[in-house]
């Protein structure tokens, strides 16, 4: 799960990590009031779940409250396009108004999980090349990135902060501040079940302080059950509406750009079904895993989501019945197709337990089901229906 910069900075503050003073605004007047309260120069920053906002015009400096108000007016409501948003961009609904900081140097600091075999642990990454896209740094100047793995049983030790700060070229005073930040970040990462915690840039200010100028925190979805306070930070405006509906229905759905809607049981088989559609010359409209014990209600919900996507020209259902019997799936499909008055053509491929009975039920239902036997044959039939 992703959150906004202003939310992430509040969490950093709770953990004693220094961030610029600021507050969030959803109207130009609120932005003006925020700038007045801060006094002095400010920065107005668009709040969307994507990086690269500055280049897209989503971050503006302001010398006065009036300028902050004007900047907010320009940014709020805009479709902000960055390298992470796609060409359609993302609508800006909130801005963060922050005190401007005089920066001497920009550093990079992050925490990630290393999932590679035998090394499973949390790793710090730091670089002198702050303020840049770290993936670019990794490609062009990998020697500028230092890594430090934290032993899961031993935990964080001060020498690790010294090792990182030496590589960053910090002086004695800064090293003390840095060690404190690093220790607190590790605690935050574990306590809140983060999957990514990035401070970029971590600024050294003209007056010698360390300050988290921008930050990004992602959370492990599987850890959310024990963090109600994090779940509350979810912003449905940042998500695809159909994906929000799918999550409420406990259906695993990701919207894509094609026109063959698919409904599959199991994530691996769902990805494979998408691959087969592509191989057959079509484009999948979505990823959809209805789950292992798909009830008729769940199947109906899944159909509603699929058919709400107006790009969808036909639907491919691919079910491998194990515990979930094919006759039960057919009953669910027929009921759902009747309830939502399905008008789209549909190719159904069933395999596994009670498959004969399942196919017979579909054929006798009087609905427009086209039955397919093989995996590839099903994809070919579905693609042909879109042309």
């Amino acid at each position: 799960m992703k959150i906004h910069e202003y939310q992430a900075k509040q969490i950093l503050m709770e953990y004693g990590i220094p961030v610029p003073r600021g507050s969030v605004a959803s109207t130009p007047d609120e932005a003006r009031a925020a700038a007045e309260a801060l006094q002095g120069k400010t920065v107005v920053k668009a709040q969307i779940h994507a990086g690269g906002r500055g280049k897209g015009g989503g971050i503006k400096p302001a010398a006065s409250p009036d300028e902050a108000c004007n900047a907010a007016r320009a940014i709020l409501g805009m479709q902000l396009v960055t390298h992470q948003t796609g060409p359609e961009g993302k609508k800006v609904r909130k801005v963060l108004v922050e005190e401007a900081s005089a920066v001497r140097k920009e550093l990079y600091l992050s925490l990630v999980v290393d999932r590679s075999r035998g090394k499973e642990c949390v790793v710090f990454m730091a670089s002198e090349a702050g303020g840049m896209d770290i993936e670019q740094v990794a490609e062009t100047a990998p020697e500028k990135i230092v890594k430090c793995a934290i032993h899961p049983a031993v935990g964080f030790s001060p020498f690790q902060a010294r090792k990182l700060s030496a590589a960053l070229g910090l002086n004695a005073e800064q090293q003390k501040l840095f060690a404190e930040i690093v220790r607190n970040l590790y605690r935050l990462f574990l306590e809140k079940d983060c999957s990514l915690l990035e401070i970029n840039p971590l600024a050294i200010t003209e007056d010698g302080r360390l300050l988290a100028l921008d930050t990004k925190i992602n959370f492990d979805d599987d850890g959310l059950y024990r963090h109600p306070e994090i779940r509350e930070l979810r912003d449905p405006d940042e998500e695809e509406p159909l994906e929000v509906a799918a999550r409420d229905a406990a259906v695993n759905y990701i919207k894509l750009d094609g026109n063959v809607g698919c409904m599959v049981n199991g994530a691996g088989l769902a990805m494979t079904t998408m691959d087969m559609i592509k191989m057959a010359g079509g484009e999948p409209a979505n990823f959809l895993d209805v789950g292992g014990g798909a009830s008729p209600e769940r199947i109906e919900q899944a159909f509603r989501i699929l058919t709400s996507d107006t790009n969808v020209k036909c639907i491919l259902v691919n079910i491998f019945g194990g515990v979930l019997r094919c006759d039960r799936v057919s009953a669910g499909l027929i009921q759902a197709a009747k309830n939502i008055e399905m008008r789209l053509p549909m190719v159904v491929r069933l395999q596994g337990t009670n498959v004969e009975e399942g196919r017979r039920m579909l054929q006798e239902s009087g609905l427009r089901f086209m039955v397919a036997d093989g995996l590839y044959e099903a994809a070919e039939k579905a693609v042909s229906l879109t042309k």
Partner: protein
Amino acid sequence: MAILLDEKSRVVVQGITGSEGSFHTRESVKLGTKVVAGVTPGKGGTALDGIPVYDCVRDAVERQQANVSGIYIPAAFAADAILEAIEAEIDLIVCMTEGIPVAEMIKVKQALKGSGTRLIGPNCPGITTPGTGKVGFMPNFIHKQGNVGVVSRSGTLTYEMIWQLTGLGIGQSTSVGIGGDPIVGCGFIDILEWFEEDPLTEVIVMIGEIGGTAEEEAAEFIRGQVTKPVVSFIAGQTAPPGRRMGHAGAIISGGKGTAEEKFKALERAGVLVEKNPAEIGRRVQEILITEKN
């Protein structure tokens, strides 16, 4: 022979009285699995179809000599259940649970180090050795006894592959689902190593998916240490970057973990890569025919 599950396996089911635990216990018994005990805290002293239920795993080990554990326990309690089984010195743990936080799995991996326990999963369909038994969700009817070892990161896609083989009259030595989470117990490399050593296994089918570098690491291992033919498919060629495709581990991040990279790494290692999963069974058939001649 086969791998992991054999005639010496004595299974304890953690969460045996739950709806999933009891259903899959009964299914596995039908397939011949020796389920010798169950564990549900607070229900010690009861029984399920004559299988004694204990309060903790240690009791099942001491009284029934259980050496394999199957875990069907909700995500919030599953990591603790794995740790309990490690402490009880179970040889093989198979955890089906989906949704265990990554932070918990980091701890579990630490506890496994230095122990004699092997973990399969979590978030996996389990293991089946046709003719001996199974632990997990795999449907009983798909299997047939034979010489192909199957290893995969997914569930229903694995059933699909096994069913394809069986449909062509090709049996399996053992089928293993290693799980779709970012951090799992045994990986491809472990299973490949055991298939390579297993005299019953002649051909290996490896089904990967996007995310992480497990397939690339496996490719490296195959090049150096696997002499048996390996047929492979990677799911997720059309998956968009940055999105979690159902499985917590199936995500392309920072441009890494794409199906294309994995296919390339496998090809370089001499693996028989098949991009059309509907053809996997036939590819295996070709190999078996060539080897016989």
